[in-house]
């Protein structure tokens, strides 16, 4: 085992590696469960979901994809901002601290998404709730060796690999995982695992696995993703938005399953005694009617066409401008969830086609 790379030492390029045999993973997880809440992909009713692991046997590192991304551990669908004991006297308590958490089995697309979220919640006014949860969280990611299904387009979005953002990163090399140790905290986790140093054979297998995987993933965008922001800025008036608006059901499935969406609503709840209660934030969606509606009924994004445009502008441009990461990581979840087949690949390629044909989209 080579010494861990220090997070603050950018010069050191040597990758710190360790090897864990597959049969030792359950014990590793079991050991972690004693100190951490562990979230990871489990099979439920014929699909996969990131859930809190109770039994290491549930963990399915070979999962294709999940309906909701692992984001839910960092930005839960509903989260207490604070509690109050007496509504009238303003006795406010900060939310209870959540347990230290390890998110196990994160794919690289989702890893990129988490890096974006980290930036969003750190920029400007740092968000105390997100940040305190993030500080309590370690990430163990896994290398994807074949596409989840026909909907994913991570390769086009540049998220098929990641060289930071994880504490540990696992690559399946047959009967073992090669562990790339990303941080000291990650290194410390390995105290709970029975790992060994890599052998030349391990390295050979790792290199082979990593180089063989790329051809398995298709490019699905017809143009280079670096052109996406400029393509979108030229596409504000595209007729495509109206077409999407006619089809879109405004069911918000696309944003609800997206690993990079972070908009929220804030709601108060109080018990029947009207004194104790809480203020929470809950996921919201720009696709819903009420999202940009103010009292009196004026909706600043009234048509579904404008809302779809806003969504794709955010994904491919606005978020990049503000946070230096693309707002779409190519996971394909929204495409899978959409009943009327509105997909980022389809939309982006169509805008590109319109531009090519018309000079202007």
């Amino acid at each position: 085992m080579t010494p861990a790379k220090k997070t603050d030492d950018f010069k050191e390029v040597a990758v710190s590696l360790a090897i864990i045999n597959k049969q030792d993973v359950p014990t590793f997880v079991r050991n972690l469960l004693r100190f951490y809440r562990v979230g990871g992909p489990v099979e439920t009713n014929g699909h996969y979901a990131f859930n809190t692991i109770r039994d290491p046997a549930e963990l399915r590192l070979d999962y294709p994809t999940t309906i909701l991304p692992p984001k839910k551990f960092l930005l839960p669908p509903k989260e207490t901002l604070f509690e109050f004991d007496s509504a009238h006297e303003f006795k406010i308590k900060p939310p209870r601290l959540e347990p230290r958490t390890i998110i196990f089995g994160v794919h690289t697309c989702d890893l990129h998404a988490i890096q974006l979220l980290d930036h969003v919640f750190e920029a400007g006014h740092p968000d105390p709730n997100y940040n305190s949860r993030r500080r309590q969280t370690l990430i163990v990611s896994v290398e994807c060796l074949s596409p989840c299904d026909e909907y994913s387009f991570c390769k086009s979005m540049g998220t098929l690999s990641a060289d930071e953002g994880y504490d540990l990163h696992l690559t399946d090399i047959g009967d073992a995982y090669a562990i790339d140790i990303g941080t000291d905290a990650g290194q410390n986790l390995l105290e709970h695992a029975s790992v060994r140093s890599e052998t030349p054979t391990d390295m050979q297998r790792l290199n082979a696995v990593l180089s063989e995987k790329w051809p398995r993933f298709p490019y699905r965008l017809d143009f280079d993703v670096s052109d996406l922001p400029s393509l979108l800025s030229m596409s504000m008036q595209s007729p495509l938005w109206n077409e999407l608006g006619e089809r879109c059901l405004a069911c918000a499935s696309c944003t609800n399953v997206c690993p990079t969406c972070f908009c929220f609503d804030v709601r108060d709840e109080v018990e029947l005694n009207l004194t104790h209660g809480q203020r929470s934030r809950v996921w919201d969606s720009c696709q819903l009617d009420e999202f940009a509606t103010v009292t009196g009924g004026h909706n600043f994004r009234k048509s579904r066409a404008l809302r779809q445009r806003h969504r794709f502008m955010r994904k491919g441009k606005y978020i990049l401008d503000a946070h230096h990461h693309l707002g779409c990581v190519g996971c394909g979840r929204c495409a899978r969830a959409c009943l009327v087949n509105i997909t980022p690949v389809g939309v982006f390629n169509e805008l590109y086609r319109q531009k090519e044909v018309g000079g202007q989209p």
Partner: protein
Amino acid sequence: MIATTEKSLAQYADTENHLFMPVAARITKVLPLTALEKVFTVQLPEGLSLDHHPGQFVEVSLLGTGEAPISISSSPSRSNGNFELCVRKVGDVTQAIHRLQPGDMLGVRGPFGRGFPYEKFRGKDILFAPGGLGLAPLRSLINQVLDERALYGRVLILYGARNPSELLFKDELEAWSKRDDVELMLTVDRGDESWKGHVGVITTLFRDVSIYPRNTIAITCGPPVMYRFVLMELIGKGISEGNIYLSLERRMKCGIGKCGHCQINNVYACQSGPVFSYPEIKGLEEAL
């Protein structure tokens, strides 16, 4: 918990991880203005000051009911440890605020957003064009300007409301109208028996004003439908786009650039606004 030396509310929130948790402030005075609007004078707990800029807003909340962004209607020049909010009763939170009495508590977060860069306005003529409740945020700047009156050129206020009973701050309007260093013009969409003044939408007032466009700053705030028309008038008067400022309303939940509701294309109104210069939003499809 709260330091004894004076600290701004914003500093307090940042250092105490209090970003989402309102600070309890006390209402010291309630002044009904119209059937729908009341002005609340609010005092922060000892040791905290608001330190706001005209044009900024606070998130006001009642626990269990919810939160609403409300402009700070008083000027920093008259803070006195207090600030004023002019609240129109339209929904859950605002109705609940209207039920409050002096002595009651109110949660406050902020101040948020970017206010008016009024230092830049010094030496210039200022034309205020508020419509309806739009006077509430502009009043903060108007009074700031009036309190340092010598630093500015002409002050023109063109104010329109739907009918005479909806005119806000009537006492102040009265006082302004009596000053000879303020040019106040009022209009209502529909008059009544007692109304002797101008009748018509706010844009009809512009016909009767002459200004020196190159030295004029124009500021407007009002209901969503108003902006386009007022802008046409202002530009028609020759005011350069860079000298036109608007305060925009959007749905808002957090006030700190996260929740996404107030986005105007790629711009968060709660961060880059609510006050914008016209060139800043001119290219934004969704702004007006």
